[in-house]
């Protein structure tokens, strides 16, 4: 079972690298935002998986709930910022 979770962990990190490529290369700013959100989703799942491996889920679940809520604040701030900047350019 533990080796299966290790496989899940390494797969998730490899998927994060794919999203990082989109964040660094992305032709428009919105590609970068989407990539950032994809990475944070992976990070939320990854924390719960790490907690399961360590058998201390009750701690790591709190961290991942905090991540999920704070991620919303950051993403909405980014969206509003880009919307207002684009509107002021025209």
């Amino acid at each position, binding site marked *: 079972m533990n080796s299966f979770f290790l496989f899940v962990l390494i797969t998730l990190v490899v998927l994060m690298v794919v999203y*990082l490529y989109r*964040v660094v290369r992305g032709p428009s700013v919105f590609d970068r935002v989407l990539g*950032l959100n994809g990475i*944070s989703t992976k*990070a939320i799942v990854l924390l719960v998986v790490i907690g399961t491996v360590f058998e201390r889920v009750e701690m790591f679940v709190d*961290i991942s709930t905090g991540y999920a809520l*704070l991620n919303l*604040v950051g993403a909405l701030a980014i969206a509003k910022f880009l919307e207002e*900047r684009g509107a002021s*350019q025209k």
Partner: protein
Amino acid sequence: MTFELPLLIFLVMTAAGAILVKDLISSVFILGTYSFTLALVWALLGAVDVAFVEGVVGAGLATVFFLLTLFTTSEKDTQIRRSPMPWTAFLALPLVALLLLYGAADLPAFGDPGSPASTHISPEYLENSVQQTGTPNVVTAILMDYRSLDTLVETIVIFTAGIACALILRKGDS
């Protein structure tokens, strides 16, 4: 543990990306990713409280503050103009890296029970904190009870930062 290696490589990749990217907005995004990854590394090392603070402050609140700062700038302010790297850096940086690696060879191993940090006072905290304070989380007990004066001064620092921001940035006579 074999899993640390891909995460650390990912951490270095995000740090390099935040420096090399062309405009400030993308740099802010990649810094958010960097904080996420650093928090994952802390969680993997077992430092749960540090991971929580890093994730919540670094990835959440700092990104919002950076963006609110960028709100008030114009488009051409957020482009980074970078001068070419001086040739002395190519000589000096590998030397510094070698020096740091040489110094790191003398550090105690990870989790070594005989290292100076884990023999001086931390055994006493670990043994007595539950009886003395009734708090199972040792980190909270140390921060808020044994070292509470330090925490008080940190709180004063945060308060001062808020006051300074309000004094400098708020307009009007309010």
